[in-house]
C-alpha cells in the first residue's frame, strides 16, 4: 500500500465528523491496509464500539411486530404484554375475521326478522366465550406447559389473555350493535351476560378436563336457557331484561370471586 490515511481524516472518522463518501472510501482502504487499521483501532473507544455492535445486533434480532401487536402497543399495552397476547389463537386475524362474519350474519338475521334482536343477543355472548376457550390451555396452546412453569404462571397468563379476548370480542360486538340501527339499544343487552358466561366458564374449567369442555357446557346451557325463557316468559327478550341483567351481574361477581379462590387449580392443575 503506497499511501496511508491522513491523521486528520482518522480523527474525523473516529469522531463521526466525516461525510459518507469519505467514510466508505476510508473503510475500503482499511480492508487492505493493516497499518491504517492498527492506527485507527487503538484510538476507537471500546465502549462506543460495543454500543454500536449492540445496536446492530438489536436491529437484526428485533422480533417482528405484526399488525395486531402494533395496534395493542398503540393502545397503551406494554410491549412485553402485547407479545404474550399475540400468540393467543383467538386474537389472530383469522379468528377475528371469523367472529366479525358471525356477528354480521346474526345482526343481518335479527334486522331482517324485524321484531326482536334475539339471534344477535343469543350469539354475541358466545363470541367471547369461544374466544376464551381457544385462548389458553394444553389443547390450544403448544407452549402452555412452559408457560405454567414460568414465574408469570398460568393464572396471570390466563387473565391477560382472557382480558384481551373479552375486550376485542366486546369491541367487535359493540361495533356490530352500532352498525345495525335496526337492532335498537336493547341489542346491548348481551354485554353483562357475556361477562358472566365467560367468568363462569373459567371457574368451571378448573374442574373439567379443559376450558373447551367448560365453554361447551356453559354455551349449551346459555342457548337452552334463553330458548326456554323466551317460550315461558310473558314478555319477549326475558333473558336480557332488567331481572336477567341483575342475575347475570350476580353470577359474574360470584364467579369472579370463585375464580380468585380457585387460582391454585390453574397454577398447579391436577391434570395437564
Amino acid at each position, binding site marked *: 500500500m503506497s499511501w496511508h490515511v491522513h491523521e486528520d481524516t482518522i480523527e474525523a472518522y473516529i469522531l463521526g465528523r466525516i461525510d459518507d463518501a469519505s467514510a466508505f472510501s476510508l473503510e475500503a482502504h482499511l480492508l487492505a491496509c493493516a497499518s491504517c487499521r492498527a492506527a485507527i483501532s487503538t484510538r476507537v473507544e471500546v465502549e462506543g464500539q460495543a454500543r454500536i455492535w449492540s445496536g446492530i445486533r438489536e436491529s437484526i434480532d428485533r422480533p417482528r411486530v405484526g399488525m395486531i401487536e402494533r395496534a395493542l402497543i398503540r393502545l397503551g399495552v406494554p410491549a412485553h404484554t402485547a407479545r404474550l397476547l399475540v400468540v393467543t389463537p383467538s386474537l389472530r386475524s383469522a379468528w377475528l375475521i371469523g367472529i366479525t362474519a358471525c356477528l354480521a350474519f346474526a345482526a343481518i338475521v335479527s334486522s331482517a326478522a324485524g321484531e326482536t334482536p334475539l339471534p344477535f343477543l343469543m350469539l354475541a355472548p358466545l363470541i367471547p366465550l369461544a374466544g376464551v376457550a381457544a385462548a389458553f390451555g394444553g389443547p390450544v396452546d403448544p407452549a402452555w406447559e412452559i*408457560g405454567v*412453569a414460568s414465574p408469570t404462571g398460568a393464572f396471570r397468563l390466563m387473565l391477560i389473555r382472557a382480558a384481551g379476548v373479552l375486550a376485542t370480542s366486546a369491541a367487535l360486538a359493540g361495533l356490530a350493535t352500532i352498525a345495525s340501527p335496526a337492532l335498537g339499544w336493547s341489542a346491548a343487552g348481551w354485554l353483562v351476560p357475556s361477562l358472566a358466561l365467560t367468568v363462569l366458564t373459567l371457574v368451571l374449567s378448573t374442574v373439567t378436563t379443559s376450558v373447551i369442555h367448560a365453554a361447551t357446557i356453559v354455551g349449551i346451557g346459555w342457548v337452552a336457557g334463553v330458548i326456554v325463557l323466551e317460550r315461558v316468559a310473558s314478555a319477549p327478550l326475558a333473558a336480557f331484561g332488567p331481572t336477567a341483567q341483575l342475575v347475570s351481574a350476580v353470577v359474574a361477581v360470584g364467579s369472579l370471586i370463585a375464580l380468585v379462590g380457585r387460582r391454585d387449580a390453574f397454577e398447579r392443575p391436577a391434570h395437564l
Partner: protein
Amino acid sequence: MEPWPIELTEVSKRYGGVRALDHVTLSAGPGITGLLGPNGAGKTTLMRIVATVLAPDEGSVRLLGHDLARAHERVEVRRRLGYMPQEPGFYQQFTAFEFVDYVAILKEMKDRSARHDAVRRALGAVGLEDVAHRKVKGLSGGMRRRLALAQALLGDADVLMLDEPTAGLDPEQRLRFRELVSQLPHRPAVLLSTHQTEDITAVCERVIVLAGGRIRFDGSPAALAETATGRVWVEQDRNEQAVLSWRMSDGRHRHIGDPPAGATIAEANIDDAYLLMAGVTAQTQGAAA
C-alpha cells in the same frame, strides 16, 4: 445446613386407577442426577411435579428450600427454574429467536436489551445462533429439541428439569448436549430424565431408576452396573432361562438373568443392570452388545 435444591417426600400421584407415582422420596443436590425408567414408569409425572406444573395427590415437594404447595414460594422457585418438557410445543409463526424471547418475557425479563442478550447467549449455548432468525416450522426435529433446551437455559437457572432432552438428536448433537450440560458454569441441580443409558454413564453423577412409580435404585452409575455383576454371561447359543438375551455382532449371545452353572460370566454394564431392574421379560433379537 443448606437445604437440598430438590426434595420430594412421600410423593404420590394417581391417574384414575393407575398409580403413576407411589410414595416417592428423594433429594438431589447440585450436579446431574439421571432419572432412568421404562415408558410408564412415572418419570414425566415426577418431572412435571418438580417443575411446578402438576400437583401431587400426596406428599410434599420443596425446591431450593421453598414449599411448592405455597403459591408465593412457587413463584420464587419458578424464577430460578429451567424446564424442558418431554414434548415441547412451539409457536410455528415465531422465529427461533422470537420463541426464546417469548419465554424470556414469561420469565419476567422485562428489559429488552438485557433480555435479547440472554436469548442470544441461550441460542449460542445450544449452537442455534446461525438459525436464530429462521421460523420454527423450518427447523429440523433436532434443532427444535435444542430450541427447547435453549429456553430452559435462559437466566442461569439453579434447578434444571430436562425431560428426554436427547430424544431425536443425532450422535454429534447428543455429544454436544453432554458437553454443554456437564459444563454449566454455575453448577445447577439438574434432573435429567432419559431412556438413554449412554447419557447416564456420560454425564450423571447419580442415577435413579424408576419403575412402576417407585424408586428401584438410587446410586452412582457404576454402582448400578455392579448390581448386575455375576448375572451376565455369554454363550454361543441362546439360553431360554435368561431374562433377556440377544445376539452380538460376533455371533455369540449375551444373556442376563441367573446364569447356569459353569457359564462364562461377562462384565456387567449399566444397560444390563437397568434391564434386569426394570424387569424386562421380552426377548430382544439382533441388538448389538
